[in-house]
């Protein structure tokens, strides 16, 4: 009994460590794919780790007008995002804290992190930070309802909002054609692009452009604070990739009863799917252009529309209205 508990505890700890360790690699893969497709050499795959190490060594410069919020926000944002990322089932569905990995809780954790980031962006009082924060909030007000609709659709299908439960349901259920799930997938991909500040919503590769959103908010940060914020945004990318994998491609994931060998297979499958997702993201970002900021409500609104149709169809299949 005690031994089981220790193994479970170690497995959960391993998941926390894995998401943190693999996050910069995933970002490195995306950058590398983009560079290669543009016929550039591109940075080495491990460049993101080196950047983080360099930033951690550097001195942190803080504006005179900054308050305590500005200094504490990076730690809180990093902690919230790490917890959220570590809760998404990656290689196994039955880990120790799987009861806490509720999608609604996940949305709440990310929402709290975003609110802190937006406040920190406005704290120093520069116009760039303010514009970034207001745009981030505009995107969030559109993306979050869509996210909740996706959650509800999945809850109708699987009967639970617990991620591990949903994953178990889709592993056990034979593959079927379901319109509502296909629509939720499209919707979740759009939400993921918007939340991770990816093209066409935001361009992660620019620092000095009037259309930037995420980079505008963190412009005032430097040194270890910036390292934490960068690490948090890497974690968020892994979180959304893991979420998509866990909900829509959970094959290979170890079910609740699996032992060590099942976990090993699950881990390999998860890493392979994660890197495949990163490659797809790179190809996607190269193939399309960034949208005008004022077109964004239409684009993210599509996620909302698809989420809404998905939930209507899910209700229809069950005949809940009747």
């Amino acid at each position, binding site marked *: 009994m005690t031994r089981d508990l220790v193994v479970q505890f170690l497995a959960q700890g391993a998941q926390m460590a894995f998401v943190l360790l693999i996050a910069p690699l995933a970002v490195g893969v995306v950058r590398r794919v983009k560079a290669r497709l543009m016929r550039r050499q591109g940075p080495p795959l491990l460049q993101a780790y080196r950047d983080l190490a360099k930033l951690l060594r550097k001195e942190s410069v803080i504006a005179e007008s900054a308050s305590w919020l500005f200094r504490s926000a990076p730690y809180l944002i990093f902690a919230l995002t790490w917890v959220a990322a570590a809760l998404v089932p990656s290689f196994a569905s039955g880990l120790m804290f799987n009861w806490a990995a509720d999608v609604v809780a996940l949305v709440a954790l990310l929402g709290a992190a975003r609110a802190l980031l937006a406040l920190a962006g406005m704290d120093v009082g520069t116009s760039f930070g303010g514009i970034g924060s207001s745009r981030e909030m505009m995107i969030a007000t559109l993306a979050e309802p869509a996210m909740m609709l996706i959650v509800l659709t999945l809850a109708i299908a699987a009967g639970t909002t617990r991620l591990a439960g949903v994953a178990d349901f889709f592993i056990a259920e034979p593959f079927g*054609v379901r319109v509502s799930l296909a629509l939720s997938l499209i919707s979740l991909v759009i939400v993921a692009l918007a939340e991770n500040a990816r093209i066409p919503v935001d361009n992660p590769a620019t620092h000095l452009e009037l259309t930037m959103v995420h980079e505008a908010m963190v412009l005032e940060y430097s040194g270890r604070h910036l390292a934490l914020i960068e690490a948090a945004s890497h974690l968020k990318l892994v979180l959304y990739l893991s979420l998509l994998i866990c909900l829509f491609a959970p094959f290979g994931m170890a079910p609740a009863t699996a032992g060590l060998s099942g976990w090993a297979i699950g881990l390999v499958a998860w890493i392979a799917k994660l890197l495949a997702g990163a490659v797809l993201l790179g190809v996607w970002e190269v193939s399309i252009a960034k949208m005008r900021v004022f077109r964004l409500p239409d684009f993210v609104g599509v996620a909302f529309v698809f989420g*809404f149709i998905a939930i209507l169809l899910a209700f*229809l299949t069950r005949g809940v209205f009747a």
Partner: protein
Amino acid sequence: MSQAYEISHLLAGVMLVTSFALLYQERVAAVLNAFAAQSITLALAVAWSAWSDNRPDLFITALIALTLKGIVIPVALHRTVARLGIHREVEKVVGVGVALMVGLALTGLAQALVLKVAAGMASHAREELALALAIILLGFLMMIVRRNAVTQVVGFMSMENGLILAATGARGMPLVVEVSVAFSVLISLFVFAVFVFRIRERFDTVDLEALDRMRGDRR
């Protein structure tokens, strides 16, 4: 739930999505492509129910939908639009966001209505009917929110796509082939009539040479 049911549900759902794509698109060319996609999906849906329910007469309906509305009408409209030089922006009465929200409300209305009214029907036919009604209402909405003649015609024809989908879902309707043929002919007539009338209204002639003279700059 059988596989036959799931595939027809999927195709009807894709048609509903293309209806929203019609509302979302701003350019005439993109609207026409979305319409072609919807008609081809309709053809697939009709062909699938012909195959799975063993009703060979529906294959004819599917063929008509595919050739006439999936290929001929979109191509003809593309050419007309190119000749009219209106392939840029579509003028609209309301914005995209409002149109989509109203569309969502109509979809919800259609489903609530059908599930209440047709409570006694088999669940398969009922759901197909609900989706078809939603597509019809979205076609109505499309005709209301667009001012451009071409996109209004597209709205009308997408409404007709919904009607054919509803007719396919309802069993024991042998007239469906005749009805769809008659409708298609009527619509092609409508398409040509609109353009002829509009052109005549503006230039007092149906000759397209008049457009060349009015263009001003020559390449």
